[in-house]
């Protein structure tokens, strides 16, 4: 089956792509939505422009659309992007990296149902700590690209996710109820290398924005190495 992946460049959508591009299925395009609303419930926002480099590294074409990020029109913008993928690449199904978000999951299921596309959520209900460990085991290089929850602070921005980070996130989950996969918006991630990439993302220049347990690691310049 030809598939399109809703792709933010973060760990969940990249790993979902990895699981989807096997057996009887082939990922033929990536779909990224750039939201101008940094508080979007639907879309991951930091470093979304890096999806162009990731698409090049994966050798899978990218459909990128901009949305103003207003609550219900952003869904229409997503639907239009999926329609374009169906027309241009003949996709028969959509893959998402949704783990627990019923809000996101339900809305994407409804769009797929309307457009008569299959909907696949290969990470659905995956235990968050197990998911992080599986990514590390599979040699994913992931950095934290934004934070938005106490007690995460500036030191987390740009930090690589490794075994030590996972242990710290597990402790924060127990102590403060932080979702260790960041799906509640506590943090967002960016994959800079993984087995599906032909080349690694090399970050050349970056800056940090931070205030009161919220911040972003903005990549200003990057290339493929």
């Amino acid at each position, binding site marked *: 089956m030809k598939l399109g992946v809703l792709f933010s460049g973060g760990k969940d959508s990249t790993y979902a792509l990895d699981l989807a591009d096997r057996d009887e*299925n082939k990922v033929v395009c990536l779909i990224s939505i750039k939201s101008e609303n940094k508080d979007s419930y639907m879309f991951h926002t930091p470093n979304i422009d890096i999806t162009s480099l990731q698409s090049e590294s994966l050798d899978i074409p990218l459909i990128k659309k901009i949305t103003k990020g207003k609550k219900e029109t952003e869904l229409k913008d997503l639907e239009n992007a999926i329609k374009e993928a169906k027309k241009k690449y003949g996709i028969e199904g959509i893959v998402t990296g949704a783990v627990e978000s*019923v809000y996101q999951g339900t809305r994407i299921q409804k769009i797929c149902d309307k457009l008569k596309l299959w909907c696949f959520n290969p990470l659905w*209900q995956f235990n968050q700590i197990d998911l992080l460990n599986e990514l590390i085991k599979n040699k994913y290089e992931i950095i934290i690209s934004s934070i938005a929850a106490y007690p995460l602070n500036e030191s987390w921005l740009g930090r690589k996710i490794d075994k030590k980070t996972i242990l710290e996130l597990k402790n924060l989950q127990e102590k403060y109820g932080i979702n260790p996969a960041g799906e509640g918006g506590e943090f967002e991630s960016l994959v800079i290398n993984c087995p599906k990439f032909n080349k690694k993302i090399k970050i050349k220049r970056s800056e940090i924005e931070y205030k009161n347990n919220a911040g972003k690691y903005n990549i200003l310049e990057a290339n493929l190495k």
Partner: protein
Amino acid sequence: MKILVISTCKNKLSEYEFIRPFLKYKPRIENYKEIKSIKWADKIIITGTAIQDNDYINNIDSFEWITKIKKPIIGICSGAQIIGLVNGGKKIKNKEIGMVKTNGKIFGKKLNEVYSIHQNGIINVEKFEIIAKSEKSDQIIKHKEKEIYGIYFHPEVRNMWIVDKFIEA
């Protein structure tokens, strides 16, 4: 406890979504088209599948064994539809996507909101009683004499206790 999980998924990619939540019971997993034996299992879970997948309905004869055995079975979403269909139920259009307010009890505990992703419902299932309902449709049916349950929603989301209780009971 020996658990058999029967996949109703046509596409292998759906199995991550519909089987992974049950791996904690350390089951044997078989696709419904390739079941080797059922005799050894103590309890059986028949999984759900993607909303667009109707392959199991086209192959409903593969599930006739359900009417002949006495083992505890829990069917989830498409699994529940299968249980209903092989027991004489009638398929109707009943699209539900999202959280649905539900009234009823299972294993002594009250239900509240459940997560549904389906386009069909099954009505008039012989020898079964309806033990939970939403405003629009039946949500759980139970065989009047056997430990066979059909759960039309997905307990994997926010209601995994139902499957835990089924396994423990």
